[in-house]
């Protein structure tokens, strides 16, 4: 059971239940409102300053009957009105602070219409005219999608991204559509982190490792529970989508068009989990990178990195070409922006994207450099006579692949003669092609770097490093005679989760 703060919580929103003692968040000069901290399921009611629906370029107009400002009881339409207003204002203010001139998509005008209950459905959407939310029946009562700050800020995220990059709306590419969904979830995460109480709760629940499963990573718990009652395979076991996940990048053309939530598919919400997972990993790495005490990061430090990763995300989106490999485009732009924001951030960004396979560890190879380096090493080890007459058992890889500069990385290649003519199989009947020794070696080293298993201490500049700040290292690099050599340090059991 996750650790809870000393707060009053409630289960599924009961009808007309009052909040006996809600948590006060912020200074309320002009009155305030009751609201959920993140989601109604096991929700924490808080009190917030009165949100200004009309504020700057990103104003809202709730289409339901106007409700006077006040502290309303959970379960009432009046509570849902101001709860939605609070979450939407907080979310838009976060993005407005990143891009002050940002305005809604041109066809919408200055006020984005909000329909808090547009009928019966477990759904919510943005359609370039409005944000629309619905309701449905579930065990324990009626569920309103517009009552969850997670859902509200996800849909708002669509509108924000549409304002930033309207060209993405019509792009016929799986990764672009999935990125739109990921941005919605990232918006929900970043909007939630603007609440001091939420930051404290997440740090407490995760021990400062904010990419662990927590109320931050579990998005839309109540809506997920309601959908799970009828479609148990359509959502994650603990929420609608959990950003703390292990999904790896696979070209979406190779994935089925749909499937259960337990597998990755090309369906945009499903495929979005790869990028959102990497984003949460990156956020966690950035927090550790700047924390005065990495063992106990503070909520102020979490606020700082949430703002900075928002800036970095925007920069990545601005710089990304709308191509079929959109994930890597955005990721590359984010890595570039991270280095400009804080030299400590490039490494956790790279580590997160490389580990997910969103960014490849390989790059263009400088062949001549590799050949020269391999010759030097072979000469030193075996003597000049054997320099060119035998296939080398040591292979020189381009260290630039791994951010290690213009030098060679020497690895032992699996090039001994085979004793048995066997191979792995793609299926039970179709044998796979046995990779050449250099391909196999490159693949092995790539995998080590992806998993953060190589200790780069002393051989790489901090800003160039792509290994995570905290992970079990099985190999280290040793500088020898102008080249780097890969040495195994230990074998691990594979059960440690970083």
């Amino acid at each position, binding site marked *: 059971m996750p650790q809870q703060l000393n707060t009053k919580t409630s289960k599924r929103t009961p009808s007309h239940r009052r909040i006996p003692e809600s948590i006060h968040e912020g200074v309320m000069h002009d009155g305030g409102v009751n609201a959920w901290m993140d989601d109604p399921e096991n929700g924490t009611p808080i009190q917030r300053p009165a949100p200004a629906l009309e504020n700057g370029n990103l104003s809202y107009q709730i289409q339901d009957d106007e409700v006077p400002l006040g502290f309303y009881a959970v379960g009432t339409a009046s509570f849902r009105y101001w709860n939605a207003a609070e979450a939407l204002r907080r979310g838009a203010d976060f993005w407005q602070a990143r891009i002050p001139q940002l305005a809604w998509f041109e066809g919408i005008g200055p006020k984005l219409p909000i329909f808090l209950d547009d*009928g019966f*459905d477990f*759904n*919510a*959407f*943005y*359609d*370039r005219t409005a944000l629309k939310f*619905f309701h449905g029946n579930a065990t324990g009562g009626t569920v309103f999608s517009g009552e969850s700050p997670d859902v509200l800020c996800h849909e708002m995220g*669509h509108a924000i991204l549409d304002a930033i990059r309207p060209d993405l*709306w*019509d792009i*016929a*590419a*799986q990764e672009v*559509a999935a990125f*739109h*969904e990921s941005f*919605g979830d990232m918006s929900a995460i970043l909007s939630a982190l603007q609440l001091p109480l939420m930051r404290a709760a997440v740090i407490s629940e995760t021990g400062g490792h904010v990419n662990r499963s927590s109320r931050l990573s579990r998005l839309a718990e109540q809506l997920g529970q309601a959908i799970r009652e009828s479609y148990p395979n359509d959502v994650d076991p603990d929420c609608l989508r959990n950003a703390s996940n292990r999904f790896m990048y696979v070209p*979406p*053309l190779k994935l089925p*068009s*749909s499937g259960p939530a337990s597998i990755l598919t*090309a*369906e945009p*919400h499903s495929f979005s989990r790869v990028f959102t997972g990497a984003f949460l990993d990156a956020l966690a790495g950035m927090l550790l990178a700047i924390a005065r005490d990495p063992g106990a990061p503070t909520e102020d430090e979490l606020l700082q990195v949430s703002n900075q990763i928002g800036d970095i995300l925007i920069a990545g989106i601005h710089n990304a070409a709308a191509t*079929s490999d959109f994930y890597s485009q955005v990721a590359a732009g984010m890595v570039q922006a991270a280095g400009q924001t804080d030299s400590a951030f490039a490494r956790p960004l790279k580590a997160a994207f490389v580990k997910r396979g969103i960014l490849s560890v390989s790059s263009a190879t400088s062949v001549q450099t590799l050949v020269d380096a391999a010759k030097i090493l072979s000469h030193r080890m075996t003597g000049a006579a054997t320099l060119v007459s035998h296939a080398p058992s040591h292979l020189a890889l381009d260290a630039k692949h791994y951010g290690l500069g213009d030098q060679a990385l020497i690895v032992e290649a699996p090039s001994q003669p085979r004793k048995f003519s066997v191979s792995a199989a793609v299926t039970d009947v179709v044998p796979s092609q046995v990779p050449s020794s250099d391909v196999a070696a490159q693949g092995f080293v790539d995998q080590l770097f992806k998993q953060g298993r190589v200790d780069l201490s002393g051989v790489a500049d901090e800003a160039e490093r792509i290994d995570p700040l905290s992970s079990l290292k099985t190999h280290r690099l040793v500088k020898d005679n102008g080249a780097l050599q890969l040495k195994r340090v230990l074998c691990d059991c594979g059960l440690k989760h970083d």
Partner: protein
Amino acid sequence: MNEQRRIPGNSIVPDTVESQAYVRGIVERGEAALPDKDGNLPHSATHEIVGHHDASGLPILVRRKMF
């Protein structure tokens, strides 16, 4: 391409391998629909069918919403 009616300029035409995979996925998931007489799509639909691409046998779509 058989244009049953005027195709908007922002249409998704399935004329490449990738766009065909994209449209096929939308169709398979039931997210493409024709509008009713009032121009509304079912809640579950993200894309409106605005035409038909003869070469691929797939519909031409326009995105109307995101969930």
